[in-house]
């Protein structure tokens, strides 16, 4: 059925995920490494073309559109899968590896698909599998957070599907190509909203810090790389040149920076900086020129590595000490010096320091906006990059490894550099971050369009060094203002975490007063025979109704919560079964 021998890397990961429980001990470790390496090899050996075309009813479904844009994303995603799996090699839970691989498989499915139908299928596979990376943390708060994550992505999926269906009705075409962004209609907006939710564009972003802060150590490393970057790919494919994405991207870049100032949990801080960095990519898609799309792709590539590295560094601290809050950490350089060095390399990369990966990728997007004379975007993105250095480059390393030592005796004793596999994964990611920054042709030759951009000019170097070093000056002058505060910050997830409770409390009153009024009607207009009864009832009503109804409402709330809890368990099981069946169907489709 395929036009050529072509193996989808997602199939390798999915089959690997199915087989993993059969391996134990040493063989399991080897198997864990071999499978993602094979997937990476499958991407490396791909030639451009279209593969895996199936006909299902009247639709043509394409699983393998291989061009320069999908290849570069496939390359970095399978590479990150190797690094992430190595980082989690010590994790005994097979489930974490299985769901992580299925999640990557879902991403790769989206990257290589050529039609909206399979895009939607893989889009949902991503949401279904990644939620387990939160639930495997196995705390009450991660259970709740995972459920929220799942519901939000369920909503996004429905919007996306609605868009796809209407789009099909309008055009009779399901192929996933560049959409008519000059004259967007309802379908295009709905698809866009579906993509923007996964790209975590405000106001559809609050799921991201909520989930990444609660995920398992290994889970967060995977999650930070795939969901948003798959969305960036989908945007670059379908929405290049849609101008509204420029302001949205700039808002994202700044929004993430503001919340990162307030954040006390290092992994949530990093999550807010995912939003900030994806903002550059979204803005790049909005600019839409060849240079800007190159910049978007390059930045996604670099971002997957350095953000993975940062989550590995902070994850290592969490893994060893059990703490991820700045107000519980500090002074750890004596105990975890190598983790510090690796995290610092990640921090310098995200801050776009010369010789590190972010420098050669972020610069392209900023240069593209200067080239198009969109000065406000260029200057604001530059401002956001000062904020990035301020937090990820300075605040994270400083308040974990230096600064005031807030560690408890127990934390301090537990802290040391993590196991060899975590160290090796961080070392590899660090090496790649520096390699990309030093040897630009490696990344630039993979970009979808030809590029002549040169980041290492004297003017640009001076510009960046001045911004970064004077940001550092500001940081050290205002360091007291930045001291960690043991707080959480309210974000838009308030509306579905707290807003619903407030709404119920508010709704109680009309319910109670309607009830009283009804009793009143009953008492006055009722039959004489029941007057006495009504009298008693109304008296009861007048005195107690508010309390009773309130009490009832609270009891319902309480029951609801318990249902929530038991339901969460059910949903997990249900999902597990669903994912399992999806796998079997996928295997069936590919092998027969």
């Amino acid at each position: 059925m395929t036009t050529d021998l072509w193996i989808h890397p997602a199939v390798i990961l999915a089959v690997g995920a199915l087989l993993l429980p059969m391996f134990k001990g040493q063989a399991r470790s080897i198997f864990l490494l071999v499978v993602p390496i094979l997937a990476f090899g499958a991407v490396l050996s791909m030639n451009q073309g279209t593969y895996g075309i199936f006909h299902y009813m009247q639709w043509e479904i394409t699983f393998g559109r291989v061009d320069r844009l999908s290849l570069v994303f496939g390359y970095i995603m399978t590479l990150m899968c190797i690094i992430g799996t190595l980082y989690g090699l010590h994790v005994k839970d097979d489930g974490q590896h299985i769901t992580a691989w299925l999640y990557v498989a879902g991403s790769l499915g989206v990257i290589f698909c050529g039609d909206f139908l399979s895009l939607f299928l893989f889009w949902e596979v991503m949401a279904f599998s990644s939620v387990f990376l939160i639930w495997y943390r196995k705390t009450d708060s991660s259970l709740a957070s995972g459920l929220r994550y799942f519901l939000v992505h369920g909503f996004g999926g429905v919007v996306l599907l609605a868009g796809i269906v209407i789009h099909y009705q309008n055009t009779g075409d399901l192929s996933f190509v560049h959409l008519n962004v000059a004259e967007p209609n309802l379908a295009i907006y709905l698809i866009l909203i579906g993509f923007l939710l996964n790209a975590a564009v405000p106001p559809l972003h609050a799921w991201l810090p909520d989930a990444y802060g609660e995920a398992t150590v290994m889970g967060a490393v995977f999650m930070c790389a795939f969901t948003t970057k798959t969305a960036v790919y989908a945007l670059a494919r379908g929405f290049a040149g849609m101008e509204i994405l420029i302001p949205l991207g700039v808002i994202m870049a700044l929004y993430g920076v503001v919340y990162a100032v307030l954040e006390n949990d290092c992994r949530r801080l990093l999550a807010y900086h995912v939003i900030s960095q994806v903002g550059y990519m979204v803005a790049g898609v909005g600019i839409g020129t060849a240079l800007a799309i190159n910049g978007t792709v390059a930045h996604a590539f670099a971002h997957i590595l350095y953000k993975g590295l940062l989550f590995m560094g902070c994850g290592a601290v969490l893994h060893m000490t059990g703490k991820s809050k700045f107000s519980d950490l500090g002074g750890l350089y004596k105990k975890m010096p190598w983790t510090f060095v690796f995290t610092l390399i990640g921090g310098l990369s995200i801050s776009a320091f010369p010789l590190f990966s972010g420098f050669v990728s972020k610069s392209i997007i900023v240069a593209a906006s200067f080239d198009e004379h969109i000065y406000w975007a260029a200057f604001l993105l530059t401002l956001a990059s000062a904020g990035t250095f301020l937090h990820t480059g300075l605040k994270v390393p400083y308040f974990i490894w230096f600064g005031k030592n807030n560690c408890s005796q127990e934390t301090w004793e537990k802290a040391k550099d993590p196991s060899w596999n975590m160290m090796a994964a961080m070392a590899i990611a660090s090496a790649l971050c520096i390699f990309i920054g030093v040897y630009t042709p490696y990344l630039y030759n993979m970009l979808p369009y030809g590029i002549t951009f040169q980041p290492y000019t004297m003017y640009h170097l001076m510009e960046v060094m001045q911004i970064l070093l004077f940001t550092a000056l500001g940081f050290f002058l205002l360091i007291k203002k930045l001291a960690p505060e043991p707080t959480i910050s309210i974000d838009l997830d308030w509306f579905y975490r707290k807003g619903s409770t407030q709404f119920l409390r508010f709704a109680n009153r009309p319910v109670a007063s309607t009830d009283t009024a009804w009793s009143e009607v009953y008492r006055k207009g009722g039959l004489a025979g029941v007057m006495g009864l009504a009298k008693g009832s109304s008296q009861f009503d007048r005195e107690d109704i508010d309390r009773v109804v309130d009490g009832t409402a609270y009891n319902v709330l309480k029951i609801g919560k318990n249902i929530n809890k038991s339901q969460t368990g059910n949903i997990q099981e249900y999902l597990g079964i669903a994912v399992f069946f999806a796998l079997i169907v996928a295997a069936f489709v590919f092998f027969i």
Partner: protein
Amino acid sequence: MDLVKLIDYLRDRQKTLIRISYVVLGLLVVFDALFLDKTKAHTWMEMLPGFWSVYGFVACVLIIILSKWYGHLGIMTREDYYDN
């Protein structure tokens, strides 16, 4: 651990490091003002001596002060806020 010794060595010489840093900052501005070829500048503002230094510093201070101001409007709240 050698790495720890190296960091301690640097920390013991913090004052010297800070002095060196100030000199580097000063040199950056001087170089920008006197020697840098600004034909690649995008806007007229960048012709001002030390423009990007000022921009970086002001950006940093603004981000910290405005964000903290926003946070203390009530956005930053107690850690058990969502627990009932």
